[in-house]
């Protein structure tokens, strides 16, 4: 719940929004769904980001550029044909129809709420996050999730998804369709001459923050895509999930392994 809001600012450019943010005490407003999940949030003013022209999905030679104010609904409906469909799947399975009509990719990344599906998907796709403001830079997604650069005077402007000619698979498990996920897994695989050439595996909603599984990735690289060793190596994965009142650590740990093995079966 937001309290004590006195002003609304409606800038028409990112520069205009950043100059308002420098005054302090103001909160950027895009989809708005992060503000009403319990607890009071005090803000002197709100900055409406909807006129910044950051609601777009563009194709470039190097990949897809997504504006920070693009809604999950629009990403879910976008026709990704290659491995980038991981992001489409993650957005289409998040929350509910009426919330996907509000939630923006930039908003979900800036607050990283526990129900967000996109960190794992973006990790598997090697995405980059462009930030304007005092921390202006283009962050690789791993660095972004580690450094958490959103400091109140910076805005996420664009998300870059490189071309991904391989297979992209995304799984999410929750007790009901609309519930927060207990674990989500994104797997990106490129195969050359029947062998695994590139592999990125990311898990979300399982550990304190979404992350790749570099040791497992390294051990799988170069194996034939149908190798029986894949299942053995995945079974040896040691992961220590955060506790959950809904499902045991053992169940969630096993679930990740099932998802990863299922992804390889799907590709092979």
């Amino acid at each position: 719940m937001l309290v004590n809001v006195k002003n609304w600012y409606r800038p028409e450019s990112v520069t205009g929004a950043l100059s308002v943010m420098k005054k302090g005490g103001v909160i950027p407003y895009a989809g708005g769904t992060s503000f009403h999940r319990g607890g009071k949030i005090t803000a002197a003013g709100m900055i409406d980001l909807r006129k910044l022209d950051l609601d777009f999905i563009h194709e470039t030679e190097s990949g897809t550029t997504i504006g920070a104010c693009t809604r999950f609904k629009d990403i879910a409906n976008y026709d990704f044909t290659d491995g980038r469909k991981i992001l489409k799947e993650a957005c289409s399975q998040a929350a509910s129809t009426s919330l996907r009509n509000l939630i923006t990719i930039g908003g979900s990344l800036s607050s990283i709420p526990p129900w967000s599906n996109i960190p794992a998907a973006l990790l598997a796709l090697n995405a980059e996050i462009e930030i304007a403001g005092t921390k202006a830079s283009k962050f690789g997604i791993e660095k972004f999730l580690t450094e958490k650069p959103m400091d109140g005077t910076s805005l996420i402007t664009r998300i870059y998804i490189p071309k991904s000619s391989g297979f992209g698979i995304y799984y999410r498990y929750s007790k009901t369709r609309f519930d927060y996920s207990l674990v989500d897994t994104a797997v990106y695989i490129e195969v050359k001459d029947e062998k695994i050439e590139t592999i990125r595996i990311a898990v979300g909603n399982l550990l304190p923050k979404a992350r790749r599984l570099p040791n497992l990735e390294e051990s799988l690289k170069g194996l034939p895509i149908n190798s029986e060793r894949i299942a053995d190596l995945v079974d040896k994965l040691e992961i220590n999930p955060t506790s959950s009142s809904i499902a045991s650590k053992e169940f969630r740990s096993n679930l990740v392994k099932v998802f990863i093995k299922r992804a390889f079966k799907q590709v092979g």
Partner: protein
Amino acid sequence: MKINLTINGKSRTLEIHPSETLLETLRNNGFNGVKFGCGTGDCGACVILLNGEPVNSCQILTAAVEAESITTIEGIGSMDKPHPIQEELVKAGAIQCGYCTPGIVLSAYALLKSNLNPSIDEIKNGIDSHLCRCTGYVKIIEGIKNAAERMSSSPKHCFGNKSQ
């Protein structure tokens, strides 16, 4: 602060507090068909159409919808002239306490406007925002399916309100 928006096809200028949610604004201005349920976007009782798309009005600050178009259940049908979706939900026995019904009707309306021949899975996805603690969902899905069949014969008539 003042805000201009369109509600059920009529332009309105409303005096609001900058922290006010759209749910609060609508109810304060007599649109009582929109219900407060959870206040966290989980139950769907507060769903309205924003520019024709279902959204949780408890999750939106009214100041953010300046110049936008809102449709509430009052813009879809009335006691004297219910919308076919409302009639088919009644016929299917899909209503008990009725608290979730306005939101479900609006979500069904948005779904059927884009797809008049939805599969059962598409209906389930279309109303995935809504919790009903009385009937379960079988009768609701049946009512929406029946409404789709009925509306497919005269879609213009069923989506004729200029506000949507």
